[in-house]
């Protein structure tokens, strides 16, 4: 029994008990039986992505998730062509290597800012497409699921990968959160205090690579940023301390995912795109409220 099944063994009865109260025609299936894997995977991935996203945002690395997701797609294509039953492991290797290279290139100032991300993003996406075209044969159908997400098709094996990555990321991020925050805010001061700024940065990049891969099936490589950055960015609009922002991020992230899954299942749209739309809408609503209504009633912004 894999870790995924172990988690389901515990969570499944709880979801079953909630199922009768869940609205909609299709949505209750996420709680009872059929699509339970999808719901559990989505929630796990959202919690981890939100936690990670708060740090990404402060480090001005919002786009790295997008870059690494495209790199993952290259890895998936190679995995598919090689006939692997779980090409996400290939994605994990590709994305981790890219994350390390991007980190080192930025640190050594070989390329500044987002340029290195842009090169990896397009290079590896294109590489994947070329590989598929040359040796892919008829497997182009599978590819769409990885581009836009295929949450309903998450099986036990996929869930294993997602649970492993999520548990690893959430525990290491909580373990390192003070050090990460210190190096994020002032790398020099952190280094002077004796924190291993380089090691922490590298570890953070690798964790990001892994989390991105775990998100591919839920939202798809094209939409990873929707769960990684949007909830954290919305939280920045309302939070007044780092801790508060972390909590708001979870609130906005989980709302986006649950509402997105509900709407997509009832309206029969793709889940990934609906989650992304909901997340962006929440950001827009909160942003409008903060910029238009709050100054209107509290002119000094207090």
């Amino acid at each position, binding site marked *: 029994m894999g870790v995924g099944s172990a988690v389901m063994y515990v969570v499944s009865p709880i979801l079953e008990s909630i199922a009768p109260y869940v609205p909609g025609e299709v949505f209750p299936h996420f709680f009872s039986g059929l699509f339970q894997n999808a719901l559990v995977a989505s929630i796990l991935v959202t919690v981890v992505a939100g936690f990670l996203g708060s740090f990404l945002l402060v480090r001005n690395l919002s786009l790295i998730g997008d870059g690494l997701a495209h790199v993952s797609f290259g890895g998936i294509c190679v995995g598919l062509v090689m006939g692997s039953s779980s090409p996400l492991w290939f994605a994990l290797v590709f994305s981790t290597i890219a994350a390390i290279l991007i980190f080192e290139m930025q640190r050594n100032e070989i390329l500044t800012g987002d340029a290195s991300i842009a090169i990896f993003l397009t290079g590896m996406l294109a590489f994947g497409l070329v590989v598929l075209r040359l040796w892919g044969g008829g497997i182009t159908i599978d590819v769409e699921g990885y581009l836009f997400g295929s949450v309903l098709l998450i099986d036990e094996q996929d869930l294993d990968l997602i649970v492993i990555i999520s548990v690893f990321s959430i525990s290491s991020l909580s373990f390192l959160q003070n050090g990460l*925050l210190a190096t994020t*805010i*002032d790398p020099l*001061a952190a280094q002077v205090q004796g924190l*291993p700024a380089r090691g922490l940065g590298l570890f953070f990049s690798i964790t990001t690579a892994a989390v991105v891969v775990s998100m591919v099936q839920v939202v798809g490589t094209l939409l990873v940023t929707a769960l990684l950055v949007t909830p954290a960015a919305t939280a920045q609009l309302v939070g007044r*301390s780092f801790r508060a922002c972390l909590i708001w991020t979870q609130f906005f992230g989980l709302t986006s995912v649950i509402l997105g899954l509900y709407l997509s299942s009832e309206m029969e749209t793709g889940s990934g795109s609906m989650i992304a739309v909901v997340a962006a809408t929440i950001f827009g609503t909160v942003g409008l409220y903060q910029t238009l209504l709050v100054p209107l009633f509290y002119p000094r912004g207090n």
Partner: protein
Amino acid sequence: MPEQYSEETILSVRNLSVTRSGEEVLERISIDIRRGEFVGLVGPNGSGKTTLLLAILGVLKPLKGDISVFGHAPGSKHNLGMVGWVPQAATQLPNNIHITVGELIKLGTLNQENYLWGVMSQMMKDRVDMALEMVGLTEMANVDVSRLSGGQLQRAVIGRALASESEFILFDEPLVGVDRASRNSLLRLLDDLCHNHGKTILIVSHDLTAVTQATHRIIYLEGGIQYDGPTEGLPDLSELANLRGIKHVHAGQEGTLNAESNHEGGK
């Protein structure tokens, strides 16, 4: 120099040369700082003030020469945490983050042993409280730093350095973006840290008036050390200009030091 300083030399720089982007910014510099001193490091843009600080911190490796901080090479594990760093708060802190004064100062308590895991020990909490009190921000511990004035923000960053319990604190342009009234109270704070809390301070600033008002000793850097001695003995700036043969060195209206020099580039 007054005799209250201990004889213990905590910083010793010998014949230091440092290059940045291939250009020699510092050339054969030698400085000694003893415990309890309050030293101002002044000089025009590009004279290598910040470069010197970064070399002392061990961030920039010297091309030639030696630096010894508390008897060991910079960044060695023997003096880790004994040196504090206070950057110019207004430009060095990311402005896209919400973090409270307390959260910021708490980061100062981290070191190589305790940075793992998110739980603070009672000792760390005490140090945060102490630092808050020393910089006068106890009441504002839960305020988002983005709501602070320039002077308060700089105090918060000083608090972070104090929370690390460092004995030798380096300040890089701490008066930039701080209004005149807060500037004086910041200088009083530094004076207090030096006299009543035994901190040794090296401050880099453009603001010559402020630095001469607060420090005991001035090091004037411009293509090498032009002056190193008691603040009272600092020659008139125009004299220094003649000495160096540079075009303009003048004290601006607020005593800001401006000079046209050949050393463009590095701060």
